[in-house]
């Protein structure tokens, strides 16, 4: 049975999951869980929030998987669900998008730079989680999800010009943090 599940095309696997086949659902979960957990970590403030997002995301995936029509890969479709969830998490946490002005950056760096855990394997993710949520969201969408500023503007409820300026400031902010922690990463 496990061998048969592995050979199923994406559309048939999705149909099996939609029909409540637990074996198919478990297989799909195991196949993509780490990638999706990575997305959750990138968008969230903490590992605990990321774990909650992971569970919420898969509930949504298996609830809506019957809408998968076979265009593109199933993994790509699931990724979109989780990115959407990440954006909703950002809105929930922040309400209105937080526009960080350049003069706040120094203050934030001074406040946060000594909070980095210099040991362990996930220094980079912790660094990302230290960013203001608005910066983190714009960086995730523009750099890692390849969205245009128009799309980011629609998703975050800001203008395309604001998206461009926030991306530039997010990079500047991250650059300054990396400069302070360069020897540790």
């Amino acid at each position, binding site marked *: 049975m496990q061998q048969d599940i592995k050979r199923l095309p994406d559309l048939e696997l999705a149909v099996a999951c939609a029909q409540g086949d637990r074996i198919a659902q478990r297989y799909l*979960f*195991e196949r993509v869980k780490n990638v999706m*957990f990575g997305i959750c970590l990138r968008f969230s403030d903490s590992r605990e929030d990321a774990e909650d997002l992971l569970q919420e995301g898969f509930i949504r995936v298996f609830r809506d998987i019957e809408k998968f029509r076979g265009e593109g890969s199933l993994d790509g479709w699931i990724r979109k669900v989780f990115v959407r969830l990440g954006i909703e998490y950002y809105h929930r946490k922040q309400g209105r998008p937080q526009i960080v002005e350049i003069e706040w950056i120094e203050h934030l760096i001074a406040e946060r730079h000594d909070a980095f855990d210099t040991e362990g394997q996930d220094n980079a993710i912790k660094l990302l989680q230290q960013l203001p949520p608005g910066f983190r969201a714009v960086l995730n969408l523009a*750099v890692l999800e390849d969205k245009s500023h128009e799309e980011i503007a629609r998703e975050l409820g800001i203008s395309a010009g604001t998206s461009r300026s926030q991306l530039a400031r997010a990079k500047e902010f991250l650059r300054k943090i990396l400069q302070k922690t360069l020897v540790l990463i």
Partner: protein
Amino acid sequence: MINDPLQSKDDIEQWMVEKFGDNFQPDAPEDAWQKLEPFLPAKKKRRLLLFWWPMLLTAGLIVLFSTLFSINNASKPVTSDILPAIETNPELQNKYQADIPSTFQNAKPVVTQPMQLAPLSVIPKKQTKTLNTSTKSSEKQTGPFMLQGAFIPVPVIGDNTTGDNAFIETKNSLAPVFLDAVMIKKTVLATVPSTSPNLKQQEQVIRKTTARHKKKGIFLGIEATPFFYTKGKTASNPSMLAFSEVPSQSPKSWSAGLNLAVEPFPNWRFSIGIQPFRQVEEARHTATLRLIDGTCLNPNDPGLKEYQFSYRLISGSGNESDLSLRLQQQDSGSSMPPDEPFVLDMKTVRRSTAWRIPLLVERRFGTGKWHFLLSGGALLELPGKNQVEVIHFSEACQDLCFQSGRLPEVKAVGRTSTSLGWQAGIGMERKVLPKLSIRVQPVVAVQNRGIQGGLSAAFLFSN
């Protein structure tokens, strides 16, 4: 220790891709599945194939119309309630015995052998007899009668062709008819013992009786339905790029095939058919695309870039197709930004086929040659081919062109799926020969992709 990632403005992006790109797959919590499983929906039961609500609605409409427009007068039960009363009433019994011989003493026998009927041609349609059916000689009744060679007089239906046919058709089961006719006769005398029997009442009752003893009908039909109206449903929130077509002219569609019907109860038919369905549509669409909507097929090629675009095409009749086309960069020095829109105009011809299986219930009204009918039921559609041909296109834009020869390489794959809808119709049927009828009815067919209206014509052969 990594190289200093901060040498250029893109270094932050490079750092992010390096750290959080496709290889970023941290271990999910070990108990993630255990926490998730209780929240997953339970295994779904197979959905019943039938759409109950359209069938219930159709059945309800048929019952409603049959109640409102029924032309079969309800008549009092003529056998079970009254006959025992007659048989337990000695006075009525005696009267019956006395009346019968005098009633028919002037009637000439049409048949001479027991349990035989003369051919229809022998029985004059307008034959009448003057009968004295009561003790009062002044009262007379008219109507054709046939005296069977046995001892039981059998009144028959008079000048009605259908009635004659009905009677002849029941000759194989004549005994029950005789008995019913006897009971009817008794009943009539019982209800109106001192007056003449009402022959019109007898006719109607006998017609009902013979109808009960008629053989159950089986009908084979050849049917054709051109559709004159087609309207498709708008696709809701397609998950991919999609454009709607504008019809250049009304789609041409039709279906034709066979259907088989049975009539287990009087005036109720149940039928199943098999009909190939054809549709031809000519339409135009305008696709607004950007380079970022497509896929670069040769990103590492330093020469001219080639892009492939895929999008969903939705026709006015609700048919969907996946269309892909390839465009080539015109000049390697092109400065076209990836998000600059360009427009393509195209004209397509779509040819689709399907198999339709109607499962219908029909309620018929009327007697004689003409019948009014209501029909409705499920319509199962099995997909066939769905071919799309691009017959006209515009230039892409200044920076892009189609493949060599300046022709678009276009592939269109029709999206087809099995669907279950419903069909309803109101029409008329006329019997032209004893076993042949012609039926015409406007029909409405509703499927997932839209609604169609047409006019159905059929020849029906009965057993």
